Structures are given as structure tokens and as C-alpha cells.
């Protein structure tokens, strides 16, 4: 059992498909960031998902997908300013790297738009 199940969480969607969960986060979050599979949050949860994996910020909540093999995908939210700041800082670093190196191709490399993009890296 991951640590996130032992934290105080809220469920926005339960037992849905990963695609629907991603679309829900994209439509309902104040801010949306994209991470690679395996991105670690909290103490020991590595994000499971099909790229691009959306993570949202809604107020003080980090909104993310949580996948269980027998139960499908959940959209879970946990209040964590620390995780939100880490996500924003990571995005800022990606933008800085793009500005430093310049060019449209660098921007594309910073944020994969699809699984195929990521696979090509």
C-alpha cells in the first residue's frame, strides 16, 4: 500500500479509465502540469500512467491520477503546498532550459506531447 492511501485525501473520480482521469484533471484544475511516468510524489508514490500524465493544482490541492490494477484509475487530491511548489519549480526549470537553449525544438523536447515523442528521446 502506498503512503498516499494513508494520507488525508479526496477522490474526484473513481474506477475510471486513465484517459478520462487525465481529461478531468485538465478541465477542472486551476493549473495543469505534465510529468513522465515514474514521477515521485510524497514519500513513495511513483506516478503510473500513459504519457502525457497531467497533474493539477486546485487551490491548495495537488490533483493526480492514482492507478490500481484491479480497480482502475482514480483522480485523487491531497493538500500539499510542498508538492505543488516542487511541481511549479520543475516547470520553471523546464522553461528556463528552453529559454537558455532557445528554439522551438528545445521547447518540444522539454515537454513531450505524446508517448511517441517521449519514446523518441
Amino acid at each position: 500500500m502506498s503512503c498516499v492511501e494513508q494520507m488525508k485525501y479526496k477522490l474526484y473520480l473513481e474506477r475510471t479509465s486513465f484517459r478520462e482521469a487525465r481529461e478531468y484533471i485538465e478541465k477542472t484544475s486551476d493549473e495543469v502540469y505534465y510529468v513522465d511516468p515514474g514521477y515521485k510524489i510524497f514519500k513513495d508514490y511513483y506516478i503510473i500512467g500513459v504519457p502525457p500524465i497531467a497533474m493539477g493544482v486546485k487551490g491548495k490541492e495537488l490533483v493526480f491520477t492514482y492507478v490500481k490494477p484491479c480497480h482502475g484509475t482514480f483522480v485523487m487530491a491531497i493538500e500539499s503546498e510542498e508538492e505543488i511548489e516542487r511541481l511549479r519549480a520543475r516547470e520553471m526549470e523546464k522553461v528556463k532550459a528552453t529559454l537558455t537553449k532557445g528554439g522551438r525544438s528545445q521547447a518540444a523536447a522539454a515537454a513531450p506531447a505524446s508517448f511517441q515523442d517521449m519514446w523518441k528521446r
Partner: protein
Amino acid sequence: MAENESALLMMGCPEVPVQMSIVLYLSNKLAKSGHDVTVAGTDAALKLLKISDPEEHYVTRTIDIDRCIADIVEKKIDFDHCFAFMHSDAGVTYAATVSAISHAKMHAVIFGKNAEELADTVDFPSEKIVAKAVHNPMPLKNKIDRVVS
């Protein structure tokens, strides 16, 4: 597949009966041909496996599926091949994750009532082994035999 390569057999939810028999069958087949086999699964799936193979004739190494993902991300382990078993959207999601974080050659073993439809949703690079099999393992076994000689 060359001899002595490592293979991960990643089980999905154990609710579809053919999965366990094919995992045992494939593990045995790979081990006999010189491969180093590890089976990953949920707690329930691993319990089913251990009850089915109490003396570890077919499977000698197991790992919790989420621990396996974590260890691959942390670069503690990796595999030459991954056979990802899936009959649901969650199974596809786990397989896509391993495909992204591991260097393993992916083999998507897709079964269940909606195998063909599910196979269409698999868009990560993989060799697809697809059979509409729920209770009868033979269609899936035959497909496996064509891929793993």
C-alpha cells in the same frame, strides 16, 4: 530472445482465469530456455501464484508490482524483456509506465473478453500478443508459442 536474458512477467488484476496458467506456463518455458525470470503482481496475484506453485518449480522470484515500478525508476533493477499481461485499462496503464521507464523490450500480452478492442488502445512500442481468452488458455498459449520458441 537470446539465452541468459532477463524477463519480467508483469501480471495485471488476477480476475481473469487464463492469466495465472499462462504466467506459470511462460515462466517455465523461459526458465527452461535459460532466462532469468521475475514475476511481478499485486498481493492477491502473487498469493495465487505461490499457492499454485508452492515448491517454486515454475517461478522462483516474485516482486510486488508497485515495488517493481519504484525499483525500475530508481534504477535498482531492469530487464531485457517485459511481458505485460493486461485485460483492462489499468493493465494497459501499468504496461505503458514500464515501457516508459524501462529499457526492456515490451511484449503486450492482451487477453479477456475485449482483447481486440483493448489492443487498439495500446500505442506504446511493443509486440502485441492478443487472444480473446477468458477461461480457456489454449488460444493465448498458442500465440505465446509462436512468439517464444
